[in-house]
């Protein structure tokens, strides 16, 4: 997992600077936002010339799943006050997956902490490396990077597609809405509006 996070972080650093962010802005995102998909969405919308509001909204819509993770982790983590404020920063895909795989609350807290600290360190270092290194990249490396970003999103999406037909339906709907709206709405907005595809996940169940 470490190597993959390193490449993903470097890809983020390079993508962010390519989208027009400074190295400091790029690193600030990894330090303060620290949730990969939201960060990629934010710089993706900015890079596509999207409105600031659309960039923030896309990041928040993707970040909302961390709220769900927090709800699941709250009871076993049992953190209060300042420790809760610190722990909250680490509530992301990877730490939740590792924590929930632990057999008991003690192992869960350890898994959460170890995964959180090592990911935070690796993610920020690789972001810095990617942001600094992108200016050294040649044209063909830039082409490669342009494909790595959507491939990374596909990799994040894939487990959901494999396990759930409803997710496949919603994902297909989201992709269609985004493509159909691309020519007619300002860049970035089509990604937010694709969230409407969630409605497809309700129709079938109520019938």
């Amino acid at each position: 997992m470490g190597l993959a996070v390193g490449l993903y972080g470097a890809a983020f650093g390079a993508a962010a600077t390519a989208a027009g962010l400074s190295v400091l802005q790029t690193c600030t995102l990894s330090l303060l936002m620290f949730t990969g998909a939201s960060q990629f969405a934010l710089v993706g919308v900015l890079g596509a010339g999207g409105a600031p509001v659309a960039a923030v909204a896309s990041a928040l819509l993707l970040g909302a799943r961390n709220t769900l993770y927090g709800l699941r982790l709250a009871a076993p983590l049992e953190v209060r006050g300042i420790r809760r404020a610190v722990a909250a920063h680490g509530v992301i895909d990877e730490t939740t997956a590792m924590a929930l795989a632990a057999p008991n609350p003690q192992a869960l807290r350890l898994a959460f902490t170890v995964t959180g600290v090592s990911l935070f360190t690796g993610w920020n270092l690789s972001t810095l490396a990617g942001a600094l290194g992108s200016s050294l990249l040649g044209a063909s490396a830039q082409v490669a990077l342009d494909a790595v970003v959507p491939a990374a999103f596909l990799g994040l999406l894939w487990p959901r597609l494999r396990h759930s037909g409803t997710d496949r339906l919603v994902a297909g709907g989201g992709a269609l809405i985004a493509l159909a709206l691309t020519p007619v709405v300002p860049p970035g907005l089509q990604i937010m509006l694709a969230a409407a595809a969630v409605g497809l996940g309700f129709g079938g169940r109520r019938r």
Partner: protein
Amino acid sequence: MIWAVVLAGSVGCYLLKYLGLAASPALLERPAVRRVVELVPAALLAALVVVQAFTDRQALVLDARAAGVAAAAVALLLRAPFLIVLLVAGGTAALVDALI
């Protein structure tokens, strides 16, 4: 303006994380809330894949990125690890770009 986006997005994402740890777990019991939050990533991630792979600003385009993403899908079908998927995507796109 970029700084405002960076900071607003960061604060918002942190608050979303904190809200989960601080809110009543009873929220999770509400099926509609749970369902929406579980399904939103599928819709948004799929939208991000196609927008990053097949569009350029407001135009639909087919270029080396599409080949890279298609190769990534094949790698995922073959259950390749995340790192390999990214390398396959980048390598394929660079190769196709050099050929066309």
